[in-house]
């Protein structure tokens, strides 16, 4: 290994060639402040435009200051990270950013979570010496994301996520000089662009420039309306992250407290989206087996590989970018929408409540779910199957508002019948989880045999693109997995070119899957948090008595009492959907 010797703040250090000054300093406990720079280790995500200039340091013999994030170490380098010159420059740069930033921190959606706020605090900024004109941009509200560009600091993290990681291309830098900003082309509104609402821009925005649309007020109103029955469903990834909002370590499972908190908030029934995840497996798994059987029987028209369709951002992505492939994804609705549909039919009948008096709220790790539940096809006579989708962060806000001391809550169970789930439903929240759950059921249905092992480790991990072959009793089933839409694009290009060898592909828009969703507690560039959430879900799966979707007794009951069998006509009507060509709009 090629080592480089240098001195940082009078301390000699030897680091690998190619290391940045920022990383080298971190190795000896020197934390140089940075702002635009962001790296998610092991996920191949790095934002390094060198634009904010907060991390500037003094390098002996160099004319000007060097940005630590972009500057590679060199032999014999002598670096001062806290010389008068460096501190003065760093503070001035932050003052300049603040001079073009609204000072409404007290009521900003990002207060307490804002990187700029903590940086200003860190540097002890008490006065802004340079005042002048401030940027004023039109606020842009879409079904899921709000853009308040006056708070944009041009770190370009959102642009990097949107282009390099997601390959969506909705956001890019426009205009010049003081007017430069990140926006859809021609400053059009986000809902007119190709945005998928994946929310990864929101997840990485250091300030309050990008946030989710807030539905907490609407939910409080519904909860206090005596004429409404309000029920709630909560997605698998939420239980692995919500605790972070209340000071728990990343990876803490708070399933029981989550149920308890929702009950205390006043929801009439506290259900679990995991139940609907099990239902999804039955529908989607059956669809896969049907296609597979037809294919093996020589049907030339059958579409393979089959793609999962749980992720609303992914659905919008292919509707915009690959409309010609819209027959390939499973027609199964996402768990959120299956839940809403069953809740407002089967369950409403069961409790004798009129559809319009039943409010379905979902707690999601996602901002795109807000958009998904507003899609017209998921409503009956204008009444949506799911009324409001809240993010994990919004739920934490509600819990605080209701004076609930989350950490001291007892563990409680979900209600029945829509609260019972299996381990298969739980792992929907991580990349690889949906397909693993599907394999557990599809294998047993297809082969008629019992699985010897339930942990398909070959399907797990954090690699952006993965593949594995599962032996279905002598028939090799090729499975592909992608998370991050940029990775998904590669698999879709292969399908388009007729090069894909897969039978089934799982796609999730967000890096890491739903655990890394745009509605989760902010990770602040720390990929370890995502990994810990992932491990938590696998732990929960392991601890479940039932770990295969088709063994969920309430699912069996649902089919017996209401749906008949998977892919039945009723299922088609309530649990499946169609896709649209959005390439023209």
């Amino acid at each position, binding site marked *: 290994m090629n080592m480089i010797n240098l001195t940082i703040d009078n301390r000699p250090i030897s680091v690998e060639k190619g290391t940045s000054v920022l990383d080298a300093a971190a190795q000896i406990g020197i934390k140089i402040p940075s702002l635009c720079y962001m790296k998610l280790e092991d996920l191949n995500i790095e934002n390094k435009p060198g634009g904010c200039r907060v991390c500037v340091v003094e390098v002996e013999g160099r004319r000007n200051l060097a940005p630590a994030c972009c500057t590679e170490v060199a032999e014999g380098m002598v670096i001062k990270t806290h010389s008068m010159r460096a501190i003065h420059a760093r503070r*001035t740069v932050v003052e300049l950013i603040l001079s073009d930033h609204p000072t409404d921190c007290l009521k900003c959606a990002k207060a307490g979570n804002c990187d700029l706020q903590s940086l200003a605090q860190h540097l002890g900024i008490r006065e802004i010496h340079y005042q002048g004109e401030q940027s004023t941009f039109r606020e842009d509200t879409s079904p899921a994301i709000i853009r308040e560009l006056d708070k944009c600091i041009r770190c370009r993290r959102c642009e990097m996520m949107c282009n390099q990681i997601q390959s969506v291309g909705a956001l890019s830098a426009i205009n010049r000089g003081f007017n430069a900003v990140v926006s859809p082309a021609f400053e059009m509104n986000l809902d007119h662009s190709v945005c998928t609402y994946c929310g990864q821009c929101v997840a990485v925005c250091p300030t309050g420039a990008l946030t989710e649309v807030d539905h907490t007020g609407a939910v409080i109103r519904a909860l206090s309306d005596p004429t409404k029955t309000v029920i709630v469903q909560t997605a698998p990834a939420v239980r692995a992250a919500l605790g972070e909002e209340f000071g728990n370590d990343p990876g803490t499972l708070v399933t029981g407290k989550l149920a308890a908190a929702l009950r205390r908030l006043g929801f009439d029934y506290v259900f679990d989206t995991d139940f609907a995840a099990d239902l999804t497996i039955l529908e989607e798994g059956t669809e896969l087996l049907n296609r597979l059987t037809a294919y093996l029987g020589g049907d030339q028209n059958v579409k393979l590989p089959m793609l999962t369709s749980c992720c609303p951002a992914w659905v919008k992505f292919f509707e915009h970018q690959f409309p010609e492939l819209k027959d390939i994804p499973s027609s199964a609705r996402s768990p959120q929408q299956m839940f809403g549909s069953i809740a407002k039919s089967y369950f409403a009948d069961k409790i004798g409540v009129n559809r319009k008096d039943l409010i379905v709220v979902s707690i999601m790790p996602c901002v795109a779910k807000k958009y998904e539940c507003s899609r017209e096809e998921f409503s009956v006579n204008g009444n949506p199957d799911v009324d409001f989708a809240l993010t994990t962060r919004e739920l934490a806000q509600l819990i605080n508002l209701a004076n609930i001391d989350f950490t001291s809550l007892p563990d409680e169970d979900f209600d029945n019948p829509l609260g019972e789930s299996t381990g298969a439903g739980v792992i929907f929240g991580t990349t690889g989880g949906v397909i693993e759950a599907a394999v557990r059921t599809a294998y047993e249905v297809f082969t008629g045999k019992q699985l010897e092992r339930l942990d398909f480790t070959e399907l797990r991990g954090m690699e952006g693109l993965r593949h594995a072959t599962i032996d279905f009793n002598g028939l090799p089933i090729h499975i592909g997995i992608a998370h991050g839409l940029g990775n998904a694009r590669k698999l879709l290009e292969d399908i388009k070119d007729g090069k894909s060898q897969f039978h089934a592909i799982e796609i999730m828009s967000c890096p890491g899957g739903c655990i890394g969703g745009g509605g989760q507690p902010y990770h602040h560039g720390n990929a370890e948090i995502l990994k810990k959430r992932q491990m938590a879900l696998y732990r929960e799966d392991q601890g479940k008595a039932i770990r295969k979707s088709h063994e969920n007794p309430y699912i069996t009951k649902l089919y017996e009492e209401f749906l008949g069998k998977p892919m039945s006509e009723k299922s088609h009507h309530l649990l499946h959907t169609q896709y649209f060509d959005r390439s023209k709009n």
Partner: protein
Amino acid sequence: MADYKMHLLVCGGTGCKASESEQIKENLLAEVERNGLSGEVQVVMTGCFGFCEKGPIVKVLPDNTFYVQVKPEDAGRIVSEHALKGRPVEDLLYRDEHDLPISDSKHMEFYKKQVRIALRNCGFINPENIDEYIARDGYAALAKCLSEMTPEEVVKEIKLSGLRGRGGGGFPTGLKWEITARSVADQKYVVCNADEGDPGAFMDRSILEGDPHSVIEAMAICGYCTGSTKGLVYIRAEYPLAIQRLKTAIKQAREYGLLGQEIFGSSFSFDISLRYGAGAFVCGEETALIHSMEGLRGEPTFKPPFPSESGYLGKPTTVNNVETFASVPVIINKGASFFNNIGTEKSKGTKVFALAGKINNVGLIEVPMGTTLREVIFDIGGGIKGGKKFKAVQTGGPSGGCLTNSFLDTPIDYDNLISAGSMMGSGGMIVMDEDDCMVSIAKFYLEFTLDESCGKCTPCRIGNKRLFEILDKITKGLGTEEDLSRLRSLCKVIKDTSLCGLGQTSPNPVLSTLDNFYDEYLAHVKDHKCPAGQCKSLVRYNIDSEKCTGCTLCFRNCPVGAITGEKRSAHFIDNSICIKCGVCYDKCKFDAVSVS
């Protein structure tokens, strides 16, 4: 040109063309034919002569007669008098400061001290005729390189010559070529940076308009040295004439086998294509230029990696400025020692400057490095317009600084200009006289930078905006002494922290005026006065009742009705209405209006 007895050279630069030089050429051609001189007199449209102040120019060879401010209707006299009878048309001749006509341009002060290397063919050959370029040793350097020299020998020669980048940075050209040559890659590129954008600068445009082949030849030589087979010229779309001439030249070079496969029968192949810029100043920065060529947003990125290692499409790329390339064939033809005998210790050869501002001879000049500012401004430039006092000269465009009287005898080279607080830049030179307010000048350059910053890094995007706002405040009489120290402090941080050369140098006009004209700043903030009388918020117009004859001219021209008074009696200005447009001052024939 040997067949003709006389050549009538008509300037075909953008400036002269805008003053009907095309029509002059047409008329000359018609007159030549009418007088039956078609076999003896050739009319040629050339590139820029440099003496733009007095354009359109017509030069007669072999006599070296230099006609200025020629009109299309003068064509008849030039042909019937000069061509037919051998008598120069005296009233069209250039006149010196004593109003004496000069018949031989060699005796013009404007040209006397010039040494033209990069501009050697401008105003001499028809840029749209490759044969004329070849007749002046054109493509001989490329032939010499391909047939007699190894790539290493060529690089060595360029290094020996001491040639440094003429785009502003002054990086040693030979070293740049050597780094690209050493980089291993399946494809390398040669890029000519023709994204000239300094206010008042037109060096590159004139070279491309007047001698495009010299750039093409040098790019091919660079390709040979560095192992590149593809050349790209990044040129701003606002230069249509340069683009057209470059296109013609590339086409001709291809037809002659001087571009394309196996040039001169060697194994070396090279071709050139054009890329158009949308006129963003920041795209003159090489990484921004490369991104723009790649179809990305024209924004700089951190160096290293330098383009010589990883440039266009991630491949090793040599980026040189137009003028740098134009000097290369001469170095190869005449040898490094010819070039490095000209100039100062660390700055060799010559430099082209575009003279503009309050100077008599606005135009394009080329002088040996080491020439003093005094020689350039007073000898070649003919001094200050209207006999006013010299105040400052801005070199290096918006990246440079304002130099005062005390620097007039400084020999111009890269290092001297930097230690004087300015820089060479690409060669813009704007002269200011006693009527110019230096705070306003600094503000003018900041405004330019503000428009042209890409907005990527904080200090340039917001810092320059704040600098501008402070300057604006000062020119409005609202500044304080504290603002001056704040200004200086912010300038230093912007220089210290900006991402690219644009931001790192943008405070220079402010710093250099603060250094050299601090009193003027003080007058603005302490006394709320603009000594030069330029800052409108700080001046008052008054009518001297003694001098005023009551002619009513000011009264009739005032656009806002701020002037009152009866005919034949003294007039008055109501300063609460006056918008300080200065019309009364300009119109008064009796010197009765004063500015205070």
